[in-house]
């Protein structure tokens, strides 16, 4: 989380996540602060696996916006995902990421993938 904020405040990160997810995450600042400090792995305010996946995609897009190296974005993403969602869905998502991410070698393509992923997981 500290890598993703890149020196900015967590509040700015929360605002960006809110915008990216079109307000569909009920993510309050204190929850994100707790996650960032490692005090909770399962965010109390995020109670569906779908919402966790949206948070994952949004955080990864923020990583791309910080111009982090692709590897750093991918590693952060894995850590976030493994901590946030339950086993069956995490296995599916991580399985897809394991297959897909090695094929996305540049930041722009990775970002388009993440944005499409987020669109797909947004509630209709």
């Amino acid at each position, binding site marked *: 989380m500290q890598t993703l904020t890149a020196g900015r405040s967590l509040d700015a990160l929360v605002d960006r996540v809110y915008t990216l997810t079109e307000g569909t995450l009920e993510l309050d600042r204190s929850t994100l602060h707790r996650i960032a400090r490692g005090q909770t792995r399962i965010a109390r305010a995020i109670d569906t696996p779908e919402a966790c996946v949206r948070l994952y995609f949004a955080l990864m897009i923020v990583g791309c916006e910080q111009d982090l190296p692709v590897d750093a974005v991918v590693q952060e993403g894995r850590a976030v995902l493994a901590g946030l969602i339950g086993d069956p869905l995490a296995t*599916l998502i991580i399985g*897809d990421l394991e297959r897909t991410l090695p094929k996305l070698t*540049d930041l*722009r393509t990775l970002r388009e*993938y993440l944005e*499409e992923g987020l669109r797909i997981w947004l509630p209709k």
Partner: protein
Amino acid sequence: MAAEVTLAPRAESNTLRGQEESLRAYLADRLGIRTRIAPLPGARALLVSGPRPEHPKGLVIDDSLTAAERIYLYVHLAAHVALRHNVPVMTIVEPRGEATSDAPVHRDAEELARAMWWGLTGDTALAALLPSRRSRLLRALLGNALARTLLRTALLGMRHAYYRLHMTALAESPLTAALRRALCVTAVVCVAPQLARARR
């Protein structure tokens, strides 16, 4: 979120663009695939599937591709879907070069796309859209690289003459329609010659 990019204003054949449009509508209406065009330096296309089969799928196509290349990709991806490669939470990456890790999957889709393109199998709604259906003569001609180049040059020459000489009286003639279809099929096979390969 990056803004969606509309189709690049290329000087491309209206027949190809119209064909592409109808295939894109087919993907959306029949297969639940929403398409958008965006810069993808590292791939030709990404098909991202949602958590459930009935969930809409998202297709991102690289904006540097021509209409003919996009048409080929739509048919190829329709083949992936027909083969049920797009299971939930699964992303299909169409690479720029040869696929490596999942080469067999792409090979199977290629095989089916070829049959679909010539109207030999698959969804009848898709077959009805394709200008190439049951074109045995064209298929035979386009299977040869030299014949393919010559045919394309001849068709482009005729198209040039048509516009240069303002032969609009022929616009609705069956011959013009047939030549348009032939140019469309030839353009697509020129960017994806594997479509004209002989059956195994």
